[in-house]
Each structure stands twice: as structure tokens, then as C-alpha cells.
């Protein structure tokens, strides 16, 4: 697992996302949205504060913070 927030970024596993919209609705920065397939997508990576709430509340393990690679 990556270290400081600096090195982290949001990853999305579209194959697992079921499009429930939880992460989108409760993102404090409202930086997430749906793509045309009804899956989650990052709208505004710069404004993501890497709070991890999307990851915590995603029932499908489809969005998470990980190393930038």
C-alpha cells in the first residue's frame, strides 16, 4: 500500500462497479459522476481530497485509493 496521500490517487474498477451512485452522492468534493455505461468515473481528479469515503462506502470494492504508479 502506498504511503502518504501525495502518492495516492483514486482507482476505479469499472468491471465491479454496479453504478449504485453511493460514492458519487457522498463524495464531499463532488468530484465523481456516472459515465455513459452508468458506472462511476472521476470528473475532477485535482479536487479529490483523498478522504477515502468513496472507498469506504462502495459496497462493491470498485473504487479505491492506490498508488499513482
Amino acid at each position, binding site marked *: *500500500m502506498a504511503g502518504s496521500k501525495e502518492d495516492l490517487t483514486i*482507482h476505479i*474498477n469499472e*468491471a*465491479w462497479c*454496479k*453504478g*449504485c*451512485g*453511493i460514492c*458519487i*452522492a*457522498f463524495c464531499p468534493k463532488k468530484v465523481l459522476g456516472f459515465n455513459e455505461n452508468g458506472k462511476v468515473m472521476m470528473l475532477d481528479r485535482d479536487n479529490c481530497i483523498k478522504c477515502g*469515503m468513496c*472507498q*469506504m*462506502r*462502495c*459496497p*462493491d*470494492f*470498485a473504487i*479505491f485509493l*492506490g*498508488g499513482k*504508479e
Partner: protein
Amino acid sequence: MNHPLVENYFRMDKFPHIWCPGCGHGIIMASIARAIEKLGLDKDKVCIVSGIGCSSRAPGYMDFNTLHTTHGRALAFATGVKLANPDLEVIVIAGDGDLSAIGGNHLIHSARRNINLTTICFNNNIYGMTGGQYSPTTPTNEKGTTAPYGNIDKPFDIAKLAIGAGATYSARTTAYHVPQMDKLIEAAIKHKGFSLVEAISICPTYYGRKNKKGSVVDMMTWLKDNFVDVKVAEKLPQEKKEGKFLMGEFINIIEPEYTDQYAKIIEHFNK
């Protein structure tokens, strides 16, 4: 890159899981894994036991010693696992139906014995797996397929029931309040003795649809708006508490633990 929690604590090849879009069960399952991670438990020494139900499918995804038993009986199986090998950290996952309907007796007896099992109740107030019948936690007047005119039963307060039965740790949290959930589950696992965390989940497919609770997000928002931590509630004026549900730790005390007590009998003969 893979989700680190999944990579480390789950059986990745079983994903995506069978739960419906927006089902709260996945949120709670993740929280259990984070608590285990936080506590640094040895995966080989963790045993997850469940009964039957949507929630009870969780163990199949979790990379520990996992046991998917018969409906309602998880705690009874778990009691055998724990007593036979107290070195195992035994965590029980059970739906509200599984735990408090058919499994109610095992719940109260496990609590009474104060055996060191951690029970996480995935409470979605409905029988999800069988298609939306009312459960012992369905609120009065709400509907289920077997309560077409509204449920006339009074629901269990599971956390309170466990206390009445003698539980030494009992808490409630919700699928919205994940940071709190993480902490409570961690505390429950750490607790020496029987512990229960009632985690309020959501079942958009049956409970939500049948009771016109709106979207998944609406249901999560409802959790957000209607639960108050006990500690916070203590300080709130009455009108702010009106109609709200309490969450947080309701009891956390230390009493002799069952497998410890049994070990003492054995010791007695070893002397």
C-alpha cells in the same frame, strides 16, 4: 492495480460479488476486513462463520477459514469452533433474519455464556435472500411480501436484546457511518467475551422497493439523517432526539469469558 484490501483479505477470483447494486452488505463486509487489518490478525487464525441469507454469503468472499452453515445456526457452529480451538478469532456474520428470527435462541445463549465470539449483524430489516418477507426487525407498519398490509409486529432492538441476554459488548452502527463502524467492529473483535455489532444495512431491491424508500442514495441518506451516536444524543435537547435511532456502544464490560473458564477446569486436572 487491485484494491489493496481485496488483494489482502478477500478471494479476488470470486468478485464481483452477487449482491445487488447498492446493497449495504458489501460496505459492512469491507469494514470487517479493515478491522482485521487494523488489528493485524493472522489470517490463518481468523474464522468467519455465517448462516444462510444474502449477508451470509460474505464468508465466501473473505480469505480466512470460512464456514457457511445452515440458516440461523451460525452462532451454534461458531461456539463449537471457538470452544474446540480458542486460539481462533471467530467472527460471525448474520442477517437480521438469520440472527434474530430462526437464530434468536443461539444469539441469546451465546450472549449469556459470554463466549468470545464477535457477531456482526447485517441488519437490512428484511429477508433479502428469499425475496422480501418481513423480518423480526422490520419496523411496524412497513411492508414485506408477507406483510402486504403493513407489519403489525413490534421489531426487535437487537442490540438491546443481546444486553438483556447478558452480552458484555453491544453496539450499533450503519452502512453510512463507516468510520464509526470500523471502530466499533474493531472494538468488538478486541473485546474478550461475547460482542455484538448491529450494522444497519440497506436492501434497495426488496425493502427499499416495497416500502418506496427511493434510490440507494436516498436510503443511505436516511441512515445519515436518522441515527445519532449515544454519546452525542446525551447532550442533545429532547426535540433533536425525537424519532432518531441511537447508535454507538451501548455496553462494554468485562466478565469471565467462557473458554477461559473452561480452561480453568482443565487446568485443575492438569495440576
